[in-house]
């Protein structure tokens, strides 16, 4: 039976898809018999398949009907109609083929340029395609390029156009969600990302990752943090100078924070936070910190400028330690895979204990940083830092500067790693009256961190830091190592 069926299949196979083939070859297609009932059944199925839009199945069914009943005029007519339709479609396709080929080449060129990282060139190619025909795929890819260049408004227009095509609606919604998140509209971002995830399961993991961020962000964000850790060298002065013999201690820390930006990512914002750190042994270094800030941020197409006033009050060992006012200005400019940022602040510091009041004064700090994203989940950063501490006691003031570099990596699962290092060269402004020399220090700092998102709101954080302080005064050389494990809870309330 299988052999017979196979032979039958071979006999009909070459003409199966072409509705015109039966007419031209009818003489050679000898009917296998006369079975009007079976022919009617095939014809009926042919009619249903034609109505369902499957012309290949309809063609096969009509042809099978005619094989069983060559005089079945209804099947013959239906097959002829399919033939005419097919020829008409082929004719229309042929006329459009040349133009389509040209557009196809431009589309392929856009893809190649996009893969090479030439977003501007890719945009020009996709734009050329879209100027000739409505092409949601070109709109999608052009939108993604514009998003990557930081042109969020233009990207949004293109992605909304692409969203109209069901096959790519999920991807378009995904990028619209990211843009909404970048604009600080976490509610809109959550809705778009959830829709993207529902429309296209292939986006599920990525959409969930970003959705997690969206649900921790918003116009009003509450967060809490608790940490336990170890510090090999607790007793340092405000400028980081060693005071004891390297007293090591463990500690526990709890912090809460509130962040509000009622008008979204652009506009005024307010931040308040408080923390308490209790040392296991060296209770004189128990620390309580209350801080608040008012600022305003202007953002557009991924870039931003910010101005902020902040106040910070710290008590150490149950005694007032520091009262500081800070003015800060900064900005960030994205350029393709790169991003450039700079901040400056002036901090008016008043140390409240008699023994360290000489450290009071005005501290200036400026830092420039460039980020490069070679891949979707990795970031390389380099920067340079310059600081000047104009203290009341001139011997405690200094000028420092030095480079910094770092690398951040996000894995497929909600795990992130970071490593950062910096070198600081510091020269004090006056001869130390006690030591009779002008002090010069070098600090080599390193930090590694790992974060694991346990859920949409909870994250475990592990941090390790190390410092090697070198000085032209041997007594000021030391090593400091810290390690901590913390748990963060963050929720976007609005």
């Amino acid at each position, binding site marked *: 039976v299988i052999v017979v069926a*196979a032979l039958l299949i071979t006999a009909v196979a070459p003409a199966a898809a072409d509705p015109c083939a039966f007419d031209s070859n009818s003489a050679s297609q000898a009917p296998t018999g006369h079975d009007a009932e*079976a022919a009617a059944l*095939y014809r009926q199925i042919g009619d249903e*398949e034609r109505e369902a839009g499957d012309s290949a199945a309809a063609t*096969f069914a009509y042809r099978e009907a005619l094989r069983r009943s060559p005089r079945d005029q209804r099947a013959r007519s239906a097959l002829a109609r399919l033939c005419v339709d097919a020829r008409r479609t082929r004719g229309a396709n042929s006329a459009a083929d040349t133009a389509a080929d040209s557009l196809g080449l431009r589309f392929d060129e856009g893809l190649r340029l996009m893969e090479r990282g030439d977003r501007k060139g890719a945009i020009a190619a996709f734009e050329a395609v879209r100027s000739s025909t409505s092409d949601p795929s070109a709109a999608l890819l052009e939108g993604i390029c514009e998003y990557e260049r930081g042109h969020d408004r233009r990207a949004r227009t293109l992605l909304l156009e692409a969203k109209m095509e069901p096959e790519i609606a999920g991807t378009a919604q995904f990028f619209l969600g990211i843009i909404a998140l970048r604009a600080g509209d976490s509610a809109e971002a959550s*809705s778009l990302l959830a829709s993207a995830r529902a429309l296209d399961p292939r986006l599920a993991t990525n959409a*969930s990752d970003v959705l997690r961020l969206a649900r921790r962000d918003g116009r009003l964000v509450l967060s809490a943090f608790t940490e336990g850790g170890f510090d090999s060298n607790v007793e340092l002065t405000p400028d980081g100078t060693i005071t004891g013999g390297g007293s090591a201690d463990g500690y526990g820390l709890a912090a809460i924070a509130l962040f509000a930006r009622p008008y979204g990512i652009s506009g005024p914002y307010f931040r308040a936070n408080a923390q308490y750190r209790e040392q296991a042994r060296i209770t004189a270094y128990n620390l309580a910190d209350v801080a608040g800030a008012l600022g305003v941020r202007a953002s557009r197409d991924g870039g931003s400028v910010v101005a902020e006033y902040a106040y910070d009050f710290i008590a150490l060992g149950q005694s007032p330690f520091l009262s500081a006012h800070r003015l800060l200005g900064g900005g960030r400019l994205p350029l393709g895979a790169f991003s450039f940022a700079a901040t400056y602040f002036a901090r008016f510091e008043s140390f409240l204990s008699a023994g360290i009041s000489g450290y009071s004064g005005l501290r200036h700090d400026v830092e420039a940083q460039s980020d490069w994203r070679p891949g979707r989940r990795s970031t390389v950063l380099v920067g340079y830092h310059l600081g000047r501490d104009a203290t009341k006691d001139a011997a405690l003031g200094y000028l420092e500067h030095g480079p910094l570099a770092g690398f951040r990596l996000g894995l497929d699962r909600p795990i992130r790693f970071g490593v950062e290092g910096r070198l600081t060269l510091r020269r004090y402004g006056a001869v130390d009256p006690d030591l009779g020399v002008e002090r010069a220090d070098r600090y080599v700092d390193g930090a590694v961190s790992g974060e694991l998102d346990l859920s949409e709101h909870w994250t475990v954080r592990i941090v390790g830091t190390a410092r090697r302080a070198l000085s032209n005064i041997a007594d000021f050389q030391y090593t400091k190592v810290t390690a901590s494990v913390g748990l963060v809870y963050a929720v976007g309330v609005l």
Partner: protein
Amino acid sequence: VKRAALLTLLLAVPARAQSSADDHLLAGAQYFHQERYPEALVEFRVADRMAPAGGASWYVASTLVKLKRPEEAIIVFARAEASAPADRDALLDYYHALACYDAKLYGCADRLLGGLGGQAGPRIAAQAQKIRTDLALLIAATPSTGTVDWYHNRGANTEKAGQLALAVSYYDEALRLSSLRTDGYRRMEASAALRRLQPQRKAQGATSEKGP
């Protein structure tokens, strides 16, 4: 998957009792094996018409999955469950799950894939596990109101078109999604639609539903 489907189909065919329908079933299986799905569909449908309770509707539905016509496949799978429940097996459930997946009925897809167990063979079991892993995040996530609305719209449209099995599937998914939301958005509405449709579907009879 392709080889397993072929083997199952070819092995299943000789066991049939009705000779004429069996010929078409066998021809359909051969076409299916050769990945000539339009031809396979026609032959399976002829077999189905000749012997409506002969189980060919399972193969019609599986071929519709191959032809990327998932909603029609779901309708035919529902008909097959009613007309030839004894012919159901793990491989056909796998195709049914793919139809649900393609129609964005993720709860249905996960339920069917989860029920395959070890009967499906190692390759299909591995494939099913991979799909279930992809689905895990999807089916546990809290849906947006827009997502719930989309399923209600599909339910209403298919109900209007007389495709009650499909409408039930969409409302069923809408109900599942509403249950994931703390506000139970449109949950009562989905329950009411299912209460309304289930008796209608039974009264209408599995064979008369609009579809392939």
